């Protein structure tokens, strides 16, 4: 018997039509796996775009999850400022008493998992925030873009 592969599909849980689309895709993909003798376990890959972290969408996602109980396989935040490899001082939310979005992501994921009967343990990851570009504008718009000459001496550390 082949090893079961876990497949995560991106779903915005605040959107009910997306959940329904996910459930159809899950059935279709798992059936395909069966037909080729490769067991597939399809679940949700949570991707926290800033929009998904607005209070009303967090509440809506929790309401939907308490209704659908979809299996969550993984959670990913986007840039998380002071948790990234590179960030500027004005992106450190703790300096101004602003909310730490990574905390919010972890709490939200834990709350969503409470309604998930799969019990599949979930990791939360985030974009490390280091990009390499061939051409960098003289005035760098964001701090996390490197030129090749900057990144090479620091590659191992990064």
């Amino acid at each position: 018997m082949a090893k079961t592969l876990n497949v995560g599909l991106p779903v915005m849980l605040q959107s009910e039509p997306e959940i329904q689309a996910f459930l159809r895709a899950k059935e279709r993909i798992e059936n395909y796996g069966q037909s080729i003798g490769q067991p597939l376990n399809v679940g949700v890959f949570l991707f926290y775009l800033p929009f998904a972290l607005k209070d009303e969408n967090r509440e809506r996602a929790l309401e939907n999850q308490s209704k659908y109980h979809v299996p969550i396989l993984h959670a990913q935040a986007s840039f998380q400022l002071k948790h990234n490899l590179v960030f500027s001082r004005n992106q450190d939310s703790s300096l101004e008493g602003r909310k730490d979005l990574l905390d919010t992501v972890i709490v939200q994921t834990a709350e969503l998992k409470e309604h998930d009967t799969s019990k599949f343990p979930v990791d939360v990851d985030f974009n490390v925030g280091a990009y390499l570009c061939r051409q960098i504008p003289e005035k760098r718009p964001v701090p996390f873009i490197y030129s090749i000459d900057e990144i090479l001496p620091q590659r191992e550390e990064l």
Partner: protein
Amino acid sequence: MKRISGGRIVLDVAHWAAARSAPELFEKNKAYEDKELLFKTEGIKSWDEYVERNPDLNSYIPHTRVFHMSNSTGLGVYLDEENLEKWGDVGTVEGLVPRSDFYKWLM
């Protein structure tokens, strides 16, 4: 990846596919400056070394916890006409998340 993930890799299959298509597309499009940048970044000197570092999907199975599969349009990066011809078109498939929603959610 194996070392720093502790065997808990979450592999984005679309990123893997893009990486595997790089040798063919870079050569076809004569993207030599980009190729040089890629080789320098990875610390390699040939496509053979590159392919060795970006192996086939089966090689990832023992170390991968979850395979992430997204719709073909990914995060809504759409190319202009000239670049579509060079680098490939994803077609008009909207996938699970429509293009308009991506723009809305990215705000």
